């Protein structure tokens, strides 16, 4: 690991000021991804600014009936929180399907959203990777790409965004609150991460020095019966090949509203708006679900080893939403 300085911030503005002055500095939350990347020499900060004392570590109800999650809340505390388990079970489920308890005890909500891709080549400094070293090439496109993206890829990068939590938050229309050098703002979670395009080195739209302070969940009645389904190579403690976060509101046999987001398929949590649009206003039958899922995946561009993800994602959408519909009957 390369030498670095360590400082503690006690409030968001102080953290932002410290980071903004140092182009190679990084915020440190739980460190479960960052410290690992520093060991691998993938991340090379010269200054770590510990923000655990600078951001909120509590979960609270908002006046509009929503819930605010402090960015410093641990993944474990988020998943155990009764407000989350009752109103947004998809969020608790997604968190519990990621990592191990040891990691969830330490990892923060803000850090979870900003964790880097687990693409093998990104984590191996002896290989070419446009995300790690812009312009060096993508080793994954002609290499081992079974785990990687099928939607929204570019000729420069086919990495996937690894957070399960982000997929659930995309489905329930969460908003990320930030403080940065230019003030504070709210970013819809679906717009926090970006597609790789020609600049895969940028995972998200945050400016250098911009700090996530909280995640807001809007009031969403149907989220009380939401579900996260994760498909992976082993039953536990593995990243998603495909995952689905879903919520649905069915009345008189008709879909009044529905939310679907996919994980493991793109450089960002993939909100399936095309499928949602096709489902609204008709019955929630297996046949309609399959056609909606196929429409969502119509533009998928598989790599040499991951074409299986297209039927897997289709089936996962159908099964997950159908389970919700059947549980509601």
């Amino acid at each position, binding site marked *: 690991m390369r030498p670095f300085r360590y400082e503690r911030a006690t409030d968001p503005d102080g953290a932002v000021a410290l980071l903004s002055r140092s182009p190679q500095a990084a915020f440190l939350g739980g460190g479960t991804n960052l410290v690992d990347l520093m060991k691998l020499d993938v991340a090379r900060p010269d200054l770590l600014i510990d923000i655990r004392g600078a951001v909120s570590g509590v979960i609270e109800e908002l006046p509009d009936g929503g819930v605010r999650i402090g960015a410093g809340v641990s993944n474990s505390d988020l998943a155990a929180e009764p407000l989350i388990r009752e109103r947004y079970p998809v969020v608790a489920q997604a968190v519990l399907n990621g990592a191990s*308890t*040891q990691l969830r005890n*330490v990892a923060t909500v803000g850090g979870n959203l900003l964790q880097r891709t687990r693409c093998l080549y990104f984590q191996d400094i002896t290989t070419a990777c446009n995300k790690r070293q812009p312009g060096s090439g993508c080793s994954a496109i002609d290499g081992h790409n079974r785990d990687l993206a099928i939607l929204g890829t570019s000729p420069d990068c086919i990495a996937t965004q690894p957070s399960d939590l982000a997929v659930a938050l995309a489905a329930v229309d969460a908003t990320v609150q930030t403080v940065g050098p230019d003030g504070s703002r709210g970013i819809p979670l679906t717009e926090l991460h970006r597609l790789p395009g020609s600049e895969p080195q940028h995972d998200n739209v945050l400016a250098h020095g911009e700090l996530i302070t909280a995640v807001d969940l809007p009031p969403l009645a149907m989220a009380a019966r939401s579900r996260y389904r994760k498909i992976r190579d082993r039953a536990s403690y593995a990243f998603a090949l495909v995952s689905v976060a879903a919520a649905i509101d069915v009345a008189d046999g008709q879909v009044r509203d529905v939310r679907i987001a996919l994980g493991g398929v793109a450089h960002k949590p993939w909100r399936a708006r095309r499928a949602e649009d096709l489902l609204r206003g008709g019955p929630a039958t297996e046949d309609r679900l399959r056609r909606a899922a196929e429409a969502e995946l119509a533009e998928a561009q598989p790599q040499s080893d991951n074409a299986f993800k297209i039927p897997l994602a289709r089936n996962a959408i159908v099964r997950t939403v159908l389970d919700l519909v059947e549980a509601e009957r």
Partner: protein
Amino acid sequence: MDTEISLRVDGAERRLTVDTRTTLLDALRERLGNTSPKKGCDHGQCGACTVLLDGRRANSCLALAVAHDGAEIVTAAGLAADGDLHPMQRSFIAHDAFQCGYCTPGQIVSAVAMLDEAANGWPSAVTFEAPDGSDGAVGTGPVDLATSPDEIRERMSGNLCRCAAYANIVPAIQEVAQS
């Protein structure tokens, strides 16, 4: 860059100077001579380095010592108060829940923490998979581990055993959960 920190390790106050790069695991093993937590993968994937960090299980290999100044740490060695083995340690011996033993201190710390988590009502991914599919309706009361090997397997999935002693680890934990 050197920094002076203090840690409370297995009940004893320790002061030491560490480089900012020093992990909690290296501080414990190389500086304080506590070799109970083991270095397996050193990347947070195997769980051999598991300790209780301020009461919660954590991978000490991914924790920077400088970021945990003042922390209370309990290792597997510290679970045996005054030389009396912890019930979980006795159960691992009784059930032959190890072969080479390298992962065992991490397994035991993790299992002890897991019993607390379940008693406090923490759900796991398995808790949400109710047989009637009624997820969302997960109670907040204690989770019964004694009758659910699936709960134990899920909650222990952050501790790998290369000898694959899992078949004995699960009953060893189950017995302590029952008592």
